[in-house]
């Protein structure tokens, strides 16, 4: 039940049912002295089969927390609430936040898998890659040794690694880019329908980063899974996403097709992020920065939490916290924005003279 991965854009309200349907999703962390902070503050989002969704935003806006919360991988002091429904290919509906025990373990690798930020920590340093592959498969399937070897080799080849060499290596014997590709292969062992990648190329050198990006393009074309990838790198989103969601202070403040988001952003924050990214082609770009920094979760501004940094802000923005609402009726062109002045927001592409 996958749609062609080449489809440029998600079809919302179309015939397809979302694979993952997220409503009023919140994550709270308990901090010292009995207080809590809300790191994800009510997210509504649908992920469609075969779709690649980029989640972008500045450091601390809640991207990792969101991913961990979806897969129920939060640390003990974190708590997720709301509604997360996973529609399995076979028609069953799963209430993700209600899962426990065996069902939860089952969900985690077979339905959805995550590649974490910081590739090294995800490995057991004294276990060879072969051991990692076998442990993962044995914990979830009754596959024979032979079957595991074959499946692992197939996936390693898919991410352009030589199984003969890699299977017998310890994690530290591999380069950062190789480890990241091994993790991608491992996450795909049980054929999940959703893959969540947290900063999959951050900290990799540019040529290595390119190889990981190319590998992601390829495996997705072959296997047709959906993906949510988390990144602070907007260029990576431009390259890999069908749809982009911008997160700010624990909320999604704009989401739309990748071309709409980059050519016609309608939230001042998305606009600001795009204007701050230096392109590599062309003459000297005229960049602009967003003043100030993200607010502290413990002391969020009233009304729209972006207002202290927003050059479109009016008095009204300090009072109303705008909901995420659709700004287009065109079918298949879902573009939602949480800003009361979105009609004034336009991107002009310029270069400095």
């Amino acid at each position, binding site marked *: 039940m996958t749609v062609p991965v080449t489809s440029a854009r998600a079809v919302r309200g179309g015939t397809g049912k979302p694979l993952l349907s997220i409503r009023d999703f919140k994550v709270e962390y308990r901090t010292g002295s009995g207080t809590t902070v809300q790191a994800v503050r009510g997210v509504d989002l649908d992920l469609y089969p075969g779709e690649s969704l980029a989640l972008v935003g500045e450091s601390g806006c809640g991207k990792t927390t969101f991913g961990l919360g979806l897969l129920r991988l939060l640390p003990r002091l974190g708590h997720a609430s709301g509604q997360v429904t996973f529609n399995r290919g076979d028609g069953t509906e799963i209430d993700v936040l209600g899962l426990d025990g065996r069902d939860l373990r089952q969900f985690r690798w077979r339905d959805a898998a995550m590649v974490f930020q910081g590739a090294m920590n995800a490995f057991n340093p004294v276990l060879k890659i072969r051991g990692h592959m076998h442990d993962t498969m044995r914990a979830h399937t009754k596959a024979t040794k032979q079957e595991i070897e074959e499946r692992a080799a197939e996936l390693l080849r898919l991410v352009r690694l030589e199984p003969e060499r890699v299977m017998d290596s310890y994690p530290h014997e591999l380069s950062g880019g190789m480890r990241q590709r091994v993790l991608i292969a491992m996450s795909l062992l049980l054929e999940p329908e959703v893959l969540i990648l947290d900063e999959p190329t951050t900290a990799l050198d540019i*040529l290595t980063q*390119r190889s990981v990006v190319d590998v992601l393009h390829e495996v997705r074309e072959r296997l047709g899974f959906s993906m949510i990838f988390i990144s602070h790198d907007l*260029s990576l989103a431009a390259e890999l996403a069908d749809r982009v969601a911008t997160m700010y202070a624990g909320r999604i403040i704009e989401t739309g097709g990748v071309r709409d988001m*980059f050519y016609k952003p309608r939230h001042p924050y998305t606009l600001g992020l795009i204007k701050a990214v230096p*392109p*590599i082609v062309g003459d000297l770009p005229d960049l602009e920065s967003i003043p100030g920094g993200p607010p502290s979760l413990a002391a969020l501004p009233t009304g729209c939490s972006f207002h202290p940094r927003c050059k479109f802000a009016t008095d009204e923005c300090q009072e109303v916290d705008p909901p995420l609402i659709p700004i287009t009726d065109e079918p298949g062109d879902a573009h939602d924005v949480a800003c009361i002045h979105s009609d004034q927001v336009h991107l002009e592409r310029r270069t400095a003279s």
Partner: protein
Amino acid sequence: MTAVDETPAVQDASGKPLMTLDGVSQVFDTKAGPIRAVDQANLSINPGEVLCLVGESGSGKTTAARMAAGLTRPSSGQVMFDGTDIWSLKKRDFRDFRRSVQYVHQDPYASLNPTRTIQQTLTAPLLKHGVVKGKQAAAERAYELLTKVDLTPPENYLSKYPHQLSGGQRQRVAVARALTLDPKIIIADESTSMLDVSIRISVLAMLGRLRDELGVGFLFITHDLAIAKYFGWRGRTAVMYLGRIVEFGPTPRIINAPTHPYTRALIDAIPEPDPDLTRTKNAESLRSLEIPSLAHLPPGCAFHPRCGRFEDGLCDGDVPQLIQVRPGQSAACHVVARDGADEPAA
């Protein structure tokens, strides 16, 4: 012949570079044997100029920068400042040199003393080096420096500790501290890599103003070519690979008309913040992703096991020298040397 000598077009008006690295090498002894982390590099920085040093991790950028700052002594070659070899300076003059060249690190959190307020961080070097007389004057100067790095109003920051500031604010404090001693050159080693896009651009804008208003020269180190392009557009860029400078020239030429296959591969690999553009970009082909170890460098051109234009017998023979391929632009590649710089990408 040094790359510096071959680029008269970009010398400043006085014609005299402030700092020159003249054939400098740095050899480290490691378990795997001696490695040449920097091999015979020639570079120069003119007053108020930005010189960018780019390359992948381990290419030798920090090692070169540490030699430029006088933090380590080259195994061979000379670091000249104001026309004098810095390692021939008398103790006192060497100290003056060290004040003139300030190093700003990647992680300001690690380089700022956590137990000192911002005011203490800034006044300590001022008083220690006698730049100003008395606490009152030092406090006034600290106030002024915070204004220069856009931490305004300064009274909001003076009594804070590093942990109370954001990453971008800490990096501004690190720059303010570097400015306490009126440096002529700031070495910025990945100084903005840990910052978010938007904050990075505002820190770079601040640094650009210092360059223009105070005439400070920069040795600007980054693995991000788009950042080198943005900050160093009016300066020059050197691309390093495994300890060697493989291409060198005015930044716009390096970015928009690179000639060395390695530079081309780097530029092509960078995604664009534009969906249509980034998906239609052609990439320089590579034969391998593995970066060879410095302890076992491939013979001839060190890039040859990865290079898509490798030619048997040519590329694995002699080490290619950095030679002029266009006015002001030089590259170390046998094929470019033979075919000329303007051959289209293979």
